[in-house]
């Protein structure tokens, strides 16, 4: 029997402090009103984090404003770019440490943080560093202006990567920022603050305020904020849109999704299975663009599901610090409860639940990769974003029906098409109401590609030239 021996990455690649304050004006404040952040795979305590108050938020915005007026807006683009290149380089140097930190605080496998998250973080900073002195080419005419101070709120599913998606373009365009990481995953943001210090970034250009939803709301509400960027749930996105309505604040919102992964009968089936697995089980399904609805052509449903189930049996669930782990922990008890509730609802409404036999660790928050078959478009699990490793399976007969079902959602973030017929890919990509369409692949990200959704998945783009426009005046 070929059993894989434990292959743990070393925890002591990272040393967390006992407690953290906020990062304001280039320095860390004294920790106050602290709460605990834990490792969701073990429920072990990692560090004490400060809960940002109105005063903290105000100090941060003031520091950002000060830095914008006195320093950052006075620097030429090439110099701003060089700071971003320095940050990118330091991220590469400290890549392993950051990967371990992210895995410990988020619960996702080290294989993913090491091979996907952190390399993308570095590449995002490299990419936008190159834009800083080329704003004339962004498409807004010569010398476009920054907004000023940007308030940025990022989620817990890709903590450092979402931070990079926010901060890199903002700084490249000439803005200064105040960023609030998610309450359960603040640690890599705080390490990033250290990196800003190592890069000698001028004080106040980047500020990090940790805390809960109320901290974020105060930040969004602050009168001296020019731009709001938010990635998170559609519900909160709606609240933010309401909050800033009637003000001059500009916003980009990256919200939820319920993407259809469409498999035609002529698809390369074995690779389609891989695409389905990547689409919904990568990052424990905590992905806004996850392929959470499988739309399979009825004629190949049996063959495909058989292959899919066999493939799911080889998914390794367990200690995220083990290099051979494929699926890690659910980020929090709250999220786990939500997933369980929705899956139960799915079964109640007539779906059939299946999961491979996954031995799960005693401590921590875990959910096995799960299929719900026999789902129809009216079911809750076909409409509501579960944000977990749960795939709702539906069938279709013709391409037109596939498109209709795929588009039948208030969301419109992403979609996947699996077919060997090139002409069908081009046609369907056009017809699908999704901001990102993947053909014979899934969950591919690149800093040069604009990412974002239609409808209730939000507005604005991150990545590419379009992502830069989000942070310049005149582009909206």
């Amino acid at each position: 029997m070929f059993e894989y021996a434990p292959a743990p990455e070393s925890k002591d690649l990272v040393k967390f402090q006992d407690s953290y304050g906020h990062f304001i004006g280039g320095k860390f404040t004294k920790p106050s009103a602290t709460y605990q952040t834990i490792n969701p795979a073990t429920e072990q305590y990692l560090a004490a984090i400060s809960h940002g108050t109105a005063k903290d938020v105000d100090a941060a915005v003031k520091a950002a404003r000060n830095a914008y007026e006195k320093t950052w807006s006075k620097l030429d683009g090439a110099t701003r770019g060089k700071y971003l290149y320095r940050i990118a380089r330091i991220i590469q140097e400290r890549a392993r440490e950051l990967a371990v930190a992210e895995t410990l605080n988020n619960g996702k496998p080290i294989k993913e943080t090491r091979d996907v998250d952190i390399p993308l973080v570095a590449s995002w900073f490299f990419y936008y560093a190159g834009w800083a002195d080329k704003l004339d080419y962004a498409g807004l005419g010569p010398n476009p202006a920054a907004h000023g101070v940007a308030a940025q709120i990022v989620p817990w599913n890709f903590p450092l990567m979402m931070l990079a998606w926010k901060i890199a373009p903002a700084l490249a365009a000439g803005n200064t920022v105040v960023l609030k990481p998610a309450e359960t995953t603040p640690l890599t943001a705080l390490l990033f603050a250290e990196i800003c210090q190592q890069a000698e970034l001028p004080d106040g250009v980047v500020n990090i305020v940790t805390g809960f939803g109320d901290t974020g709301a105060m930040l969004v509400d602050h009168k001296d904020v020019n731009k709001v960027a938010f990635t998170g749930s559609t519900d909160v996105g709606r609240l933010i849109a309401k909050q800033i309505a009637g003000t001059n604040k500009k916003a980009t919102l990256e919200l939820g999704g319920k993407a259809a992964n469409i498999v035609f009968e002529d698809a390369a089936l074995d690779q389609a299975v891989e695409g389905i697995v990547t689409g919904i089980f990568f990052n424990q399904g905590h992905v806004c663009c996850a392929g959470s609805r499988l739309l399979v052509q009825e004629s190949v449903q049996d063959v495909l599901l058989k292959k899919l189930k066999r493939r799911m049996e080889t998914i390794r669930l367990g200690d995220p610090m083990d290099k051979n782990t494929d699926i890690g922990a659910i980020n929090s008890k709250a999220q786990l409860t939500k997933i369980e509730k929705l899956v139960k609802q799915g079964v109640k409404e007539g779906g059939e639940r299946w999961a491979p036999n996954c031995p799960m660790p005693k401590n921590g928050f875990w959910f096995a990769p799960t299929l719900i078959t026999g789902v129809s478009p009216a079911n809750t699990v076909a409409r509501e974003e579960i944000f977990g490793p749960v795939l709702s399976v539906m069938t279709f007969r013709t391409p037109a029906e596939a498109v209709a079902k795929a588009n039948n959602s208030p969301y419109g973030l992403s979609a996947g098409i699996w077919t060997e017929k090139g002409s069908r890919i081009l046609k369907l990509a056009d017809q699908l109401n999704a901001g990102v369409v993947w053909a014979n692949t899934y969950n591919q990200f690149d800093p040069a590609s604009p990412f974002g959704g239609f409808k209730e998945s939000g507005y604005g783009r991150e990545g590419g030239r379009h992502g830069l426009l989000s942070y310049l005046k005149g582009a909206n």
Partner: protein
Amino acid sequence: MRLEVKKTYKLFIGGKFPRSESGRVYKVNDHKGEFLANVAKASRKDSRDAVVAARAAQSGWAGATAYNRGQILYRIAEMLEGRREQFVEEIRALTGKTDKQANLEVDQAIDSFVWHAGWTDKIESVAGNMNPVAGPFLTSQPTSQPALLQPLRRKRRL
């Protein structure tokens, strides 16, 4: 007094530093007319070899990801910044420029590499071409290989 180890100046072809296949060198003096070095004098064959090497490498370079090409250009900037003094000294010896002028020239060279490093993965989104009516979806292709002739102050062709 420590005797300095003088540098030998050869050609740079195909990742290596060969002497000229002709065996020839020519004397380079500093701006005061004092002897500096015997530099390899490239022949037509050397030029041919250089072009052949460049051609052989072109498809690999074009095939590298834009991100990778940008990383390499940025690395050149890093190394140039690190060896600044050497270049300043050589510029000053050859041209008589002041320390300030020579440093400025090196600054500009480094910053040029940084500028271009940032372009590799953005050219498509600025100058790419897509016909939304009927296709085709074009990507930019590199043109042929430019041969760079650098004019000297004394108008001698290299």
